[in-house]
């Protein structure tokens, strides 16, 4: 195997292996409400978050019951939720890349609205 073939092979290996690199860096934390909290449906309810994008992230998305409801362009802040119906709801903050693909860094909590 000559040097050119070796470099090409090495490059291809890196390209194929790249999906598994760097996924674990960064963090997404929902600082408020707490997981399992009970919210008053008549109150203004905010989701506060703190995100570190990591090497592959660009911004974050907020989801309520798996539906994207907001684009979070600041790494730390809060978002005022629209009125939620009574019952259990899933809230998730996910770091996404420039193409809006979740990078795997996320936190999801469940709240109950009364």
């Amino acid at each position, binding site marked *: 195997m000559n040097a050119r073939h070796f470099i090409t092979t090495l490059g291809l290996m*890196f390209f194929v292996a*790249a999906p598994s690199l760097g996924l674990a860096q960064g963090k997404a934390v929902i600082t408020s409400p707490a997981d399992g909290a009970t919210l008053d449906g008549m109150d203004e309810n905010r989701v506060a978050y703190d995100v570190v994008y990591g090497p592959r992230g660009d911004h974050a998305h907020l989801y309520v019951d798996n539906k*994207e409801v907001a684009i979070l362009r600041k790494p730390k802040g809060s978002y005022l939720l629209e009125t939620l119906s009574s019952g259990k709801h899933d809230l998730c903050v996910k770091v996404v890349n420039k*193409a*809006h*693909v*979740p990078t795997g860094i996320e936190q999801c909590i469940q709240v109950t609205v009364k």
Partner: protein
Amino acid sequence: MSPENLAYALTQVVHNFGAVAVLGGAVFTLWPTPRLEFGRTFGWLILVAWAAQLASGGVFGLVSYHYYGETPDLSSVAMTALVVKIVAAFSGVLLCALFLLRGRSWQPEGVKRSFQGLTVLGVVALTAAAFLRWFS
């Protein structure tokens, strides 16, 4: 240089030049001076450009799938914009193909209307692209 970003960037190059060609080609055929006699040449250019738009759009999804195992998460506004773009692209391909297959027998007014239609499709697609970019 991250191979992921390189893959997205190279795909974006094709997508950007495709966008220039679909709109620029149609506009240049009509304005500032009509160049309908070169309609077939521009028709081929615009056909290839729309095909490149469709292909590179699909490749964006494939790159995401390769690196993350899923396609982009789009809001309802962004998803609507994406559908508008896809419909515009397929309409552009169909209109170009129709013109290239049958346009020889068309009157100049019909050729002009075809390129006006292609211009509108280009404007619609580029407008939708902006909403897709910023509402995701």
